[in-house]
């Protein structure tokens, strides 16, 4: 009975202990194979399984997969050797949620030292684990934040200093923790710290306070500061948490943007071209002063109007296609006719494009003046053309008249001369013997005059013909031409010696018949004006000057006084008396006319009795 009572009392004690254990801990017992043979209520509660679901299962039922295999193996090795295992395990409840338990597994051994069963006693530590995780996460956030996150006490002594703070201010945590925050504050802003502390002590939070701070290397940077009180569990303010962001770059960017916006605004306001901003349906959102002036609307009137309100009626149909063109991302460039508020229209050049926000930007230039200028140029051109046609007609008419005049001269002017000459001769023939002394000579003089007049008429007609006939240029072998002219002149005379030297003469481009006339006149002049020399010298040559052939004929004849050189090439101009050298004074005028018609120049150099040289230029053969 005693034993019984003792046993009973022992059992009662065990039951009490067990009850107390069940109250406090999560208990499970497994067999040596790991099969669950007992779970208490707390186990069921935390694992959310019913007891029947657990019994006979092993612990894999609540395996979270969190722990590595080595961890599990270590556990089993420990308890397999009969040793107690302690550790923290993450388990998975039936509903999939996780929970952490602080676990002690005690193996109970049988007689031969092999585990008989394992008793696992666990305590729920999920709340602590979650708190630890949250705090680790926060620490990581704080640590790796780009912003400076600083903790300090109410005396401004730094308690914590993250990597962001190191990066922004240049000080390491080692340098700052324990130091005063005031070393970051520029000398002229030291008051700020007291003000911030004042706010914090009153329990206020300071948000996005923009100020300047000094870095370790002395730079002043723009920072945005947010400060809030740190309270202890009892709610007493024990410190300040401070977040500071370097806004130097963003401030600079903001400044740049403001400056850029300002300059664009100025451009917009003062641009001489009209500028409008419209939505995608071409309703105007803004317009500049030039646009308003062009159209006669105020800015307020213009905003809200549609493109169809300000283009000419006939243009309205083109707005749709233009909008789809711009919508299709290609720029629109075209001339449009616009309609002012007063209904008048004007032409403008439009360039429109889509801006990134989806609106349309249009630049409009009034081209009325340009159009007028174009019209004026067009008008002037056609006037000029008309004038050219008229002048050409006048010239042609003048040429025709000249031709008719020449024709008439050719036919009619000779007949009277023939009468003068013929009847003078008739008188001489019929009445010769009866004529008084000297009369025969006078009649002969009359005849001479008539014959000379015929020569003048012939020369004049030749000269006039040269102006009228068209040039027909071809390559001319100048040397051959000169020799043939000399042959025609048949200059060899018995009573005097005439030396003619011909240098190498390059070919040229000319009208062969006219060029022949030039050489004929120049060479016959040379022969004529050396007529009084016993030994006449005529030199024919060519020199190159500025890419042109300069041909010349030089003689040692009587020459002329250079002060009359300007008269040399005039029609009927003579520098010698007719009784000394016969001639009509047309030869050199003909030469000049022909050379000028070929675009060349002709000139002469001479001294009295020192001979003369006549030069003329003519295009070389290679020019054509």
């Amino acid at each position: 009975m005693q034993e019984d009572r003792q046993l009973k009392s022992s059992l009662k004690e065990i039951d009490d202990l067990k009850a107390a254990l069940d109250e406090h801990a999560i208990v499970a017992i497994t067999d040596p194979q790991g099969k669950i043979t007992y779970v208490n209520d707390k186990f069921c509660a935390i694992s959310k399984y019913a007891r029947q679901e657990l019994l006979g299962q092993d612990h894999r039922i609540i395996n979270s997969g969190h722990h590595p295999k080595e961890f599990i193996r270590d556990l089993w090795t420990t308890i397999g050797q009969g040793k107690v295992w302690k550790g923290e395990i993450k388990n998975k409840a039936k509903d999939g949620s996780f929970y952490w338990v602080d676990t002690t597994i005690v193996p109970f051994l049988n007689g031969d030292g092999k585990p008989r069963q394992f008793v696992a006693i666990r305590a729920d530590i999920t709340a602590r684990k979650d708190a630890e995780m949250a705090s680790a996460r926060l620490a990581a956030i704080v640590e790796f934040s780009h912003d400076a996150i600083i903790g300090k006490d109410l005396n401004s002594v730094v308690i914590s200093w993250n990597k962001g703070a190191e990066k922004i201010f240049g000080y390491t945590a080692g340098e700052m923790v324990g130091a005063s925050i005031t070393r970051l504050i520029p000398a002229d802003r030291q008051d700020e710290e007291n003000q911030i502390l004042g706010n914090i002590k009153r329990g206020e939070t300071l948000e996005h306070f923009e100020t300047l701070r000094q870095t370790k290397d002395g730079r002043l940077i723009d920072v945005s500061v947010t400060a809030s009180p740190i309270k202890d569990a009892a709610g007493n303010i024990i410190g300040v948490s401070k977040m500071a962001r370097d806004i130097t770059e963003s401030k600079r960017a903001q400044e740049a943007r403001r400056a850029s916006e300002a300059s664009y605004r100025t451009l917009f306001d003062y641009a001489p071209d009209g500028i409008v901003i419209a939505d995608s349906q071409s309703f105007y959102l803004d317009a500049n002063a030039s646009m308003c002036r062009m159209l006669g609307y105020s800015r307020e009137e213009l905003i809200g109007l549609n493109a169809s309100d300000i283009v000419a009626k006939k243009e309205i149909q083109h707005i749709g296609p233009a909008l789809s063109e711009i919508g299709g991302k290609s720029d629109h460039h075209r001339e449009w006719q616009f309609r002012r508020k007063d209904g008048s229209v004007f032409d403008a050049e439009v360039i429109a494009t889509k801006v990134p926000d989806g609106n349309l930007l249009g630049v409009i230039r009034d081209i009325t003046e340009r159009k007028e200028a174009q019209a004026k140029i067009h008008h002037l051109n056609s006037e000029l053309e008309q004038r050219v046609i008229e002048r050409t007609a006048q010239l042609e008419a003048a040429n025709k008249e000249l031709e008719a005049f020449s024709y008439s001269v050719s036919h009619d002017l000779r007949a009277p001369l023939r009468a003068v000459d013929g009847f003078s001769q008739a008188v001489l023939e019929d009445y010769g013997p009866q004529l008084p002394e000297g009369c025969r000579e006078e009649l002969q003089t009359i005849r001479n005059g008539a014959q000379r007049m015929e020569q003048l008429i012939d020369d004049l007609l030749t000269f006039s013909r040269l102006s009228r006939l068209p040039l027909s240029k071809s390559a001319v072998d100048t040397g051959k031409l000169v020799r043939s002219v000399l042959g025609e002149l048949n200059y060899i005379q018995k009573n005097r010696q005439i030396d003619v030297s011909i240098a190498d003469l390059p070919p040229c481009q000319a009208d062969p018949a006219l060029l022949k006339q030039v050489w004929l006149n120049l060479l016959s002049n040379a022969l004529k004006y050396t007529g009084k020399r016993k030994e006449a010298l005529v030199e024919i040559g060519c020199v190159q000057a500025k890419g042109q052939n300069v041909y010349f004929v030089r003689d040692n004849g009587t020459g002329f006084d250079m002060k009359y050189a300007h008269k040399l090439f005039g029609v009927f101009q003579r520098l010698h008396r007719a009784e000394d050298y016969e001639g009509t004074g047309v030869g050199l005028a003909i030469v000049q006319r022909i050379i000028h018609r070929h675009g060349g120049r002709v000139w002469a150099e001479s001294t009295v009795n020192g001979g003369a040289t006549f030069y003329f230029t003519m295009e070389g053969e290679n020019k054509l």
Partner: protein
Amino acid sequence: MNETTIVEILLVEDNPQDLRLTQRALIKANLANHIHVARDGQEALEFIFCEGEYAGRKIENAPKVILLDLKLPKVDGKEVLERIKSDPRTKMIPVVVLTSSKEQSDVVESYHLGVNSYIVKPVNFEGFAAAVQQLGMYWLLHNQPPKLAE
């Protein structure tokens, strides 16, 4: 025999002085016996084609040579020349243009129209007389004309 049937030279000349000088030159060369003078182009055509005043003439009694001035009243010398040379009945009559003009256009055109000779009258009377005498001698005495009469 009618006076006009034995015409050897038809002289077409409007200028009276030139006419007298030409006649003088022909007389001196003894060629003036059978000259007929027409004073303008129309008269020349009427004579040659036996029309109007000359309707009684026979066309086959053509002159041996026609001395034709170019610048003539009414119908000018080139038209006369063209009419003569484009008519099969008259185109074989030798025509000599005797003119003041040295214009190339006149010379070329005359030859195009079929002239037999083109003589420019010189101002110098000896030259003029020589030219007239030579061409008279040539066409009247030396030249062998085809038989015109059928």
